[in-house]
């Protein structure tokens, strides 16, 4: 599904990532973990087209997508969420998800201004679709709330609903459990599994070890910008190098 090969990123002399490669298989939940400063978020920003890497390539479903801007990647079926949720704060919860349907609709400036019949039909379809995703994550009750006023946990769910509205085949989640309490984290784990059940491949960066070990099929460990290990949760837990990196030895 997603093949990342030989990614190197140098920020003004500082090597943030060095020759990082991994593969996320279709239908899997793949976790990317590592201590602070390991380069996890940088890797995500490169894969999602926000940064341009110094070298290396990204393939999505066998297609070369290296360096494509995020809006192109969205149309190719890849979407991401952010560690500090990036909601459209002045818009309602419903409208936030409706923006997620942008690539699934096409009425332009003129059709929308002149209320062309097809644009009215499309608007109805967008609204229904958005409602479906609000229901999927369980926040239909907040549909008309201004997104900026949502509590953090619900904001997180909204961001996921909005990403799902793009109908991606691959979703990248940057620390989805950050800022959530233990109950919300449990609910998130089951939500991620329900997302996988829809046939969507999930790649997540996460600090919450319990969550990662529970739900991931495969785990990639980064440390100081390099890939330290890759394997099943059990293999990772038993890997002496990983243990050393996390305990700060060596």
């Amino acid at each position, binding site marked *: 599904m997603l093949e990342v090969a030989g990614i190197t990123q140098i920020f003004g002399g500082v090597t943030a990532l060095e020759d990082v490669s991994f593969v996320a298989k279709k239908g899997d939940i793949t976790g990317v973990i590592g201590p602070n400063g390991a380069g996890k978020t940088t890797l995500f920003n490169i894969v*999602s087209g*926000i940064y341009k890497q110094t070298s290396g390539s990204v393939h999505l479903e066998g297609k070369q997508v290296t360096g494509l*801007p*995020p*809006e192109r990647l*969205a*149309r190719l079926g890849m*979407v*991401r969420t*952010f560690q500090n949720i*990036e*909601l*459209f*704060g*002045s*818009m309602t919860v419903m*409208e*936030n998800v*409706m*923006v*997620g*349907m*942008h*690539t699934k*609709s096409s*009425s*332009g*400036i003129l059709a*929308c*201004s*002149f*209320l062309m019949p097809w*644009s009215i039909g*499309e*608007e109805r379809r*967008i609204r229904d679709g958005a409602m479906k995703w609000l229901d999927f994550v369980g926040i239909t009750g907040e549909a008309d709330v201004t997104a900026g006023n949502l509590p953090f946990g619900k904001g997180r769910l909204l961001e996921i609903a*909005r*990403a799902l*509205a*793009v109908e991606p085949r691959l979703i990248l989640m940057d620390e989805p459990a950050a800022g959530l309490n233990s109950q919300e984290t449990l609910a998130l784990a089951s939500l991620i599994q329900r997302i996988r059940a829809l046939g969507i491949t999930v790649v997540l960066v996460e600090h919450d070890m319990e969550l990662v070990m529970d739900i991931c099929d495969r785990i990639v460990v980064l440390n100081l910008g390099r890939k330290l290990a890759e394997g099943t949760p059990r293999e990772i837990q038993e890997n002496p190098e990983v243990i050393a990196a996390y305990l700060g030895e060596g």
Partner: protein
Amino acid sequence: MKKELLKFLVFLVIVMAAPLAFKGGYLLNVLVFVGINTMLAIALNLLLGYAGQISLGHAGFFGLGAYLSGIMTATYGWNPWLVMPLAALIVGILAFMIGFPVLKLKGHYLAMATLGLGIIIYIVFNETVDLTGGPSGLSGIPNLTIAGTTFDTDLKNYYLIWSFTSVIVFLAVNLARSRVGRALRAIHDSEVAAQVLGVNARIIKIQIFALSAAISSLAGSLYAHTMTFISPASFGFNFSVELLTMVVIGGLGSIYGSFFGAVLLTLLPEFLREAQDYDIVIYGALLMAMVMFMPGGLVRGIPALFNRFIKPAGKGNGHA
């Protein structure tokens, strides 16, 4: 949907009935300009209030429409109804091309670039004397005619201009509530999140810049034909600031807010005749006061005041 239609009908009734209250007085003439300014404020609001991109050069686009119409009709004798859409198209395309490099800029840099653009256009109006008449202006622009009726009185012009303005209001309200309007607001709130969801922020910003310029050009053409005389002074930096003030005072991201902003800022000078030289100071003070005390503009600030002071205490349920 129904609520929006009702709002628009109320707006229409107010607009159509307003001349009855003024019975051909001098104020009727001012109300013609309120209509033109409403169009301009809406055009700028689509860019500034929705997409969150500032322009300090909109008076320039307004002027381009006015001069294109003025020169082609007065000097070359073309049909005004032909020139008007043509001018809007040309100005729109021009803005589209300028938008490619300029809209890559953000914040202060975008403000400076559009400021420069406005000043360049202003200088062109002043310096191309053979074409524009230079600082002394261009006269002899014909009034518009429809089926033998010439729009040469304030009352006729009022209904002409406000017909255009009403159509612009209707279209802008529709646009604002559509997927395009949502994409614009999304870019305003978080450009990176909008892009990740598949919104092509770069193109959509350029499109709305071009649309905004084209509407401004249309307003300019109408201005030229109602005034029959134009000079560069009407299209300078001061007027760009005035437009900005209308948008902010009315309410960023509210189409009807732009209408209220245009009404207030166009009528205000008429009541401040004695203070004429200080008008820019008064605009500045108003702008500061609004940003400090009513950042949402009149359309949001007045209902908020109402809820706070006039509604019986204890009944409010606390939400902002």
